[in-house]
């Protein structure tokens, strides 16, 4: 199965929605810190979930340029 930025974004959104505290109206353009109100630890914990779902390791330094869900999807695609 080839993964695209869209399909990975969708997986990320589905994973986020499993957390009832996350707003329901998130899109690939939602900003992870500002729109989801995640603190630094919450971001790292959520990335760990995504890593296991997609069987990929995202080094933490790659997250410095990630603002939106789409940015994260792009980073994951580039690591696969």
């Amino acid at each position, binding site marked *: 199965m080839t993964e695209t930025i869209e399909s990975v974004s969708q997986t990320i959104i589905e994973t986020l929605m499993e957390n009832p505290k996350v707003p329901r109206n998130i899109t690939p353009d939602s900003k992870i810190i500002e729109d989801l109100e995640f603190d*630094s*630890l*919450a971001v790292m914990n959520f990335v*760990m979930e995504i890593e296991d779902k997609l*069987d*990929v*390791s995202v*080094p933490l*330094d790659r997250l410095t340029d990630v603002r939106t869900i789409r940015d994260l999807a792009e980073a994951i695609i580039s690591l696969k």
Partner: protein
Amino acid sequence: MDIFTKFKTLETAFAHLSSISEHNPFGTTIEKMISATIGIINGKETLLFGTNNYLGLSQSDAARHAAADAAMQYGVGTTGSRIANGTYSLHQELEQDLAKFFNRRSCMVFSTGYQATLGMVSTLAGKDDYLFLDADCHASIYDGSRMSQAQIIRFRHNDADDLRKRMRRLGDIPGIKLVVVEGVYSMFGDVIPLKEFAQVKREENAYLMIDEAHSFGIFGEHGRGIAERDQVEADIDFTVGTFSKSLGTVGGYCVSDHPQMDLLRLCTRPYMFTASLPPEVIAATKANLEIIKNHPELMHKLMDNASRFYHALQSAGFLTGPDISSVISVILEDLVQASRFWNRVLELGAYINLSLPPATPDSRPLLRASIAAAHTTEQIDKLVQIYIQAAQDVGVPLKKN
């Protein structure tokens, strides 16, 4: 918009905390120290259960005298870096004492524990290397990892299988792999299953660093920490730690058998670009290390106290962490409840730590007590009574077994 705009979320969160908390949990002032376990707070004698003073040695007579003598002999500061004018014979003697205590070839002493981990992690891991960090590692380790510019992979807390999985997921990577763990984690006081990590380290041909900040002087027959207790010291490449807990002073160290350790004195920025510890701190630390060496009964008393407190909390129905160590935390559900509980405990005469997310592992607030060898059985029992009373007063539900 100004330079402080970015702190708006913090400002709002702190304003909320201040509105529900009579005393500022991050602004407690100890007006006077009566003993290792009693201080004056808000004008009132208060039991100290949040000071990390695990063996009570911040108040040791031997250390006070050694510090006073050193201050009279050498002055109160070195005014310089270890690599310039800031190395006195005392610094070298302490490094030799620590290396000998750990049966290691060499030791580097840093000005704080924070700088020891920051310095070792940031210097050992280079740009093309991989750092594997436990999810619950201390901020100093995460800060060091960012300074290192290495690739940073975080694995699930205390889960050696998860570490193995994440290492194998990378395939055949060319970089060096350094795994960083802690002996006892500072929030829940939970202990690492170190044998399992040593196994992964051997299988994957990685280097292993352990921070024994909360386990030095407490675990192992001689007090060398969890690596000694679990008999895996041969698998540890670097042990880092602090003077500011069981040793009762301030400072940090790294001990290792690697013969190139002295090179690190010339390239570890948090070691080089700061003033060395003042003579009185070094002398006091040396004196307290002698006490740890010669008085294993302190460790036993501490573990008896911790065990007594842990079991009393469990039978009262509090939700605690999984292990008995010098740190025993009660896990609460929300900030308002935790803040009210902390304030009530203080009013009833005991100081503990209130730890709030994101400094706690799972976004729940913690009430963190540090237990000391210096606490009497009566003080431990008194704290249990205070917890039960506070829980009743602020409505923390207790689970009856």
